[in-house]
């Protein structure tokens, strides 16, 4: 066997002729010994490969290959304990089956003969491909699993027991190895980082054997670069990989990872390693994923422009650090969490970005609401006027609605909405409904006035229209749809909503199919005024009268209505008697106008009013003889008297007229006569005077 050449690239040699002779001697000795000790020969003879061990049991048995000395020693003990012991040597070295000594150099053991699945995975893996290429650094089965001493991986003695895996991989992947020096691997200090990571600490320092090892994430056999879509550490798969252990991790990740979004739409979400850098994973929250510093290398430059359109790409980190996305002045959300799809392995990590920032990756629920809102619907139709998140919230400097500096702070909301909804602006010009001058009206309304005075809990645009679920009134889902208006107003005016919902104007109570009044029918939508303002008190009659036409008309036939029409605000208006929000049928015992309550209602204005006083017919009309006979007949009696008097006296006067004219002309004539007489005899004058 000495000097024989083996097929393949390696030369395996015995340690020279002297060694060969020694081997023969040893073999013979062994036989002798086996004869001396009956047990051993029996065992040796029974055990498969005993023949082989006759030679290979010698520790000094070596061969040389490419100038290196290679031991051909097989530790009998270890082999006997290995999983493969029962197969004997030829179980793996099948080509030596039946071959006599000195046998030829055996072919490379093909583990795949038995381990087909693993072999397939390996063949497709980075390691397998390298091996197929003939890469001398490529690991094969034996490099990790060992050869004659393979025990089950579950066995603590296994070379691939969890605690040993980092060392197995580290053979090649630690710093300074040919692999780490000569092969393009993006990560540095892999083992060092791992050993300091929470995973490494658990495994290596605490001996927690379920802690992930290299293979847990990278798999054992189908190790692939993270750029490969099939890789377990590819962006698309990393979540699945991490959640093998961290199931339900969604729950602790705010609301980021709803449902399967993480797996299905990985592009909109940050992948685990964006925050939890590979190998360095800590048990504290990550300061940064893709290091912001990497981004700021370029984006801190105020002159940075986008080549495509010259848009400034400068990022004011200070702005970010004071934003909602910061935590106590430092960045809480990494650049790459919003600007996902970065690839840290690129010189310009951002060049792989294909989508704009999608806030819904974190703000998922709000995103869903927005998508159904009219703003979101328009965005979906690529309407250039549609506002997106940043139009209201800004970008890097986004602040919470609690921050007085924020555009979404209560006092700033009307101004924010006014950007588009002020008369003449882009939203107002495409609006075809009845509400106009909404910003001006709101500003002068009670809500607007209170807001101006700094009352931040008063209603702003978003209080009624919602912030993200804005829908036109015609949409049943809208917060301002007919069905939802009372509840929307009731969010603040709860007590009033309760009254209203128990009133006859509530559909639940009235059971009416007719259109029923809503808050805004009396109070208007945007120009809401204080109800004790004169204008409100005077307008309300017309408001009730829109539906209650007949009764409103008769109201104007009586004192309250007449003086109200003249602008007298103190006179009772509809709601002063009927109630404002708790209006009920007058036949309802709970009504303000029920028998039990009516006197008290009148007493609100007429101190000392009695039940009999309340008998005043506030809606009496002289046009209805059936309902108001007294009034009707009094009216016609008085009218008859009036007409009778005028007819009689008018006739008297008319008949008088001709005689009166006659008398007038006679008088004139007499006067002229007297004037003529005055000039002639003075005696006449005196006489006339005396007479």
């Amino acid at each position, binding site marked *: 066997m000495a000097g024989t050449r083996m097929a393949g690239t390696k030369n395996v040699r015995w340690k020279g002729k002297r060694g060969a002779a020694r081997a023969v001697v040893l073999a013979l000795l062994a036989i002798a010994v086996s004869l001396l000790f009956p047990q051993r020969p029996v065992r040796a003879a029974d055990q498969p490969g005993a023949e082989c061990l006759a030679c290979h049991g010698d520790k000094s048995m070596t061969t040389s290959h490419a100038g290196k000395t290679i031991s051909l020693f097989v530790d009998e003990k270890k082999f006997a304990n290995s999983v493969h012991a029962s197969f004997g040597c030829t179980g793996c070295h099948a080509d030596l089956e039946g071959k006599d000594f000195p046998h030829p150099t055996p072919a490379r053991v093909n583990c795949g003969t038995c381990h087909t699945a693993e072999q397939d995975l390996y063949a497709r893996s980075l390691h397998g491909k390298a091996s197929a290429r003939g890469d001398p650094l490529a690991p094969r089965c034996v490099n990790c699993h060992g050869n004659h001493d393979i025990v089950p991986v579950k066995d603590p003695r296994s070379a691939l027991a969890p605690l040993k895996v980092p060392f197995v991989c580290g053979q090649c992947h630690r710093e300074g190895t040919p692999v780490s020096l000569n092969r393009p691997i993006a990560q540095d200090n892999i083992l060092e980082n791992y050993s300091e990571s929470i995973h490494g600490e658990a495994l290596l320092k605490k001996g927690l054997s379920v802690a992930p090892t290299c293979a847990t994430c990278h798999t054992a056999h189908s190790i692939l670069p993270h750029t490969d879509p099939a890789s377990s550490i590819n962006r698309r798969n990393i979540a699945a990989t991490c959640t093998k252990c961290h199931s339900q991790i969604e729950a602790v990740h705010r609301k980021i990872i709803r449902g399967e979004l993480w797996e299905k739409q990985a592009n909109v979400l940050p992948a685990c390693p964006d925050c939890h850098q590979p190998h360095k994973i800590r048990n504290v929250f990550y300061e940064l994923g893709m290091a912001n510093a990497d981004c700021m290398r370029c984006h801190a430059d105020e002159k940075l422009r986008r080549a495509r359109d010259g848009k400034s790409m400068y990022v004011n980190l200070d702005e970010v650090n004071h934003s909602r996305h910061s935590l106590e002045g430092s960045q809480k959300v990494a650049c790459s969490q919003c600007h996902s799809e970065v690839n840290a392995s690129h010189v310009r990590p951002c060049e792989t970005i294909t989508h704009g920032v999608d806030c819904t990756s974190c703000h998922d629920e709000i995103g869903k609401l927005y998508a159904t809102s009219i703003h979101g619907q328009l965005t979906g139709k690529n309407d250039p006027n549609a506002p997106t998140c940043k139009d209201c919230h800004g970008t890097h400097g986004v602040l919470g609605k609690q921050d007085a500096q924020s555009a979404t702070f209560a006092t700033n909301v009307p101004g924010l909405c006014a950007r588009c909804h002020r008369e003449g602006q882009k939203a107002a010009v495409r609006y075809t409904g009845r509400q106009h001058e909404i910003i001006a009206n709101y500003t002068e309304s009670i809500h607007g006035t209170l807001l101006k005075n700094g009352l931040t809990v008063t209603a702003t645009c978003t209080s009624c229209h919602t912030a993200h679920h804005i829908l036109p009134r015609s949409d049943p889902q809208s917060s301002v749809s007919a069905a939802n208006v009372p509840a929307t107003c009731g969010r603040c005016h709860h007590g009033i909503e309760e009254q209203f919902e128990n009133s006859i104007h509530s559909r639940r109570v009235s059971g009416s199919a007719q259109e029923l009044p809503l808050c805004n029918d009396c109070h208007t939508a945007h120009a809401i005024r204080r109800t004790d303002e004169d204008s409100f008190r005077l307008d309300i009659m017309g408001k009730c009268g829109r539906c209650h036409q007949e009764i409103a008309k008769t109201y104007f036939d009586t004192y309250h209505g007449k003086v109200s029409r*003249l602008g007298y605000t103190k006179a009772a208006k509809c709601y002063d008697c009927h109630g404002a929000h708790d209006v009920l049928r007058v036949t309802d015992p709970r009504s303000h106008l029920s028998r039990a309550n009516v006197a008290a209602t009148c007493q609100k204005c007429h101190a000392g009013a009695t039940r009999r006083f309340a008998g005043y017919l506030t809606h009496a009309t002289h046009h209805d003889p059936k309902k108001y006979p007294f009034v009707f007949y009094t009216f016609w009696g008085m009218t008859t008297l009036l007409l009778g008097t*005028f007819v009689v006296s008018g006739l008297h006067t008319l008949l008088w007229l001709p005689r009166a004219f006659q008398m007038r002309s006679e*008088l004139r004539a007499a006067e002229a006569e007297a004037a003529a007489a005055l000039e002639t005899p003075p005696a006449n004058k005196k006489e006339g005077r005396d007479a």
Partner: protein
Amino acid sequence: MPDREVAPRQFVRFTRLQRILHICMIVSFISLALTGLTLKFSYTKWAAVLSHLFGGFESAGYIHRSAAVVMFGVFFTHLVDLYKLKRREHTSWRSLVLGPGSMVPNRRDLTELIGTLKWFVGLGPRPAYGRWTYWEKFDYFAVFWGIAIIGSTGLTLWFPVFFTRFIPGSFLNVATIIHSDEALLATGFIFTVHFFNTHLRPEKFPMDITVFTGRMPLEELKRDKPREYEALVASGKLEEQMEEAYPPIVTRTIRAFAWVALALGFSIVLWIIYAMLFAYR
């Protein structure tokens, strides 16, 4: 009447108190009419304008009630005056009521009415009227009637809480109608029939200021109240009742006031006609 060189002596028809009462009544009546009709015709544009002029409805209400107090004052002062007259000139109420100067209509008024109607249609001569013609008596008692009807309903409406201790609340509705329609009758009558009978008759046109000055030329007395004149001459008491006429400055002032009253009255009539015919509801 043509001016005279010296102030002529004129027949005194009304006492100073009567003249003052009439002026007070004019002021109060027109105030009541304007403010009250504002409410009655609240549906017209004019009502809103007037209400505004009065300083809003509330102050219009105060004006209305103040004027009503003046009217009551006029009424009761007159009653007191009548009582004094009875004490002064009559032995009994019967004598006051049935005496020659009485305002109470009597059989002669009926004959004069018939005679007047005959005269109108050319069937007889103009009756020789006495101190008070039947239409003047009608006007006089119309005021009594008006005060009673409008005043009582007005008080009811002024103090509804008090009055509904005795009457049902719905009577307030009835009172409202009586008050307002009777007021309409009163204003309509005064501003048309009374105005015509007293001022606008062609022979008196444009106005008769006797009620303001209290004096009337003797010629006028002879012509319009021949029976009274005869009686005065017969009793020799005429000269007792003659006084000097007021200087022109006084009559001019009186005329100016009367013009205002007339103009307001006519305006109110026009407004009523407009409201009743064109804006009625």
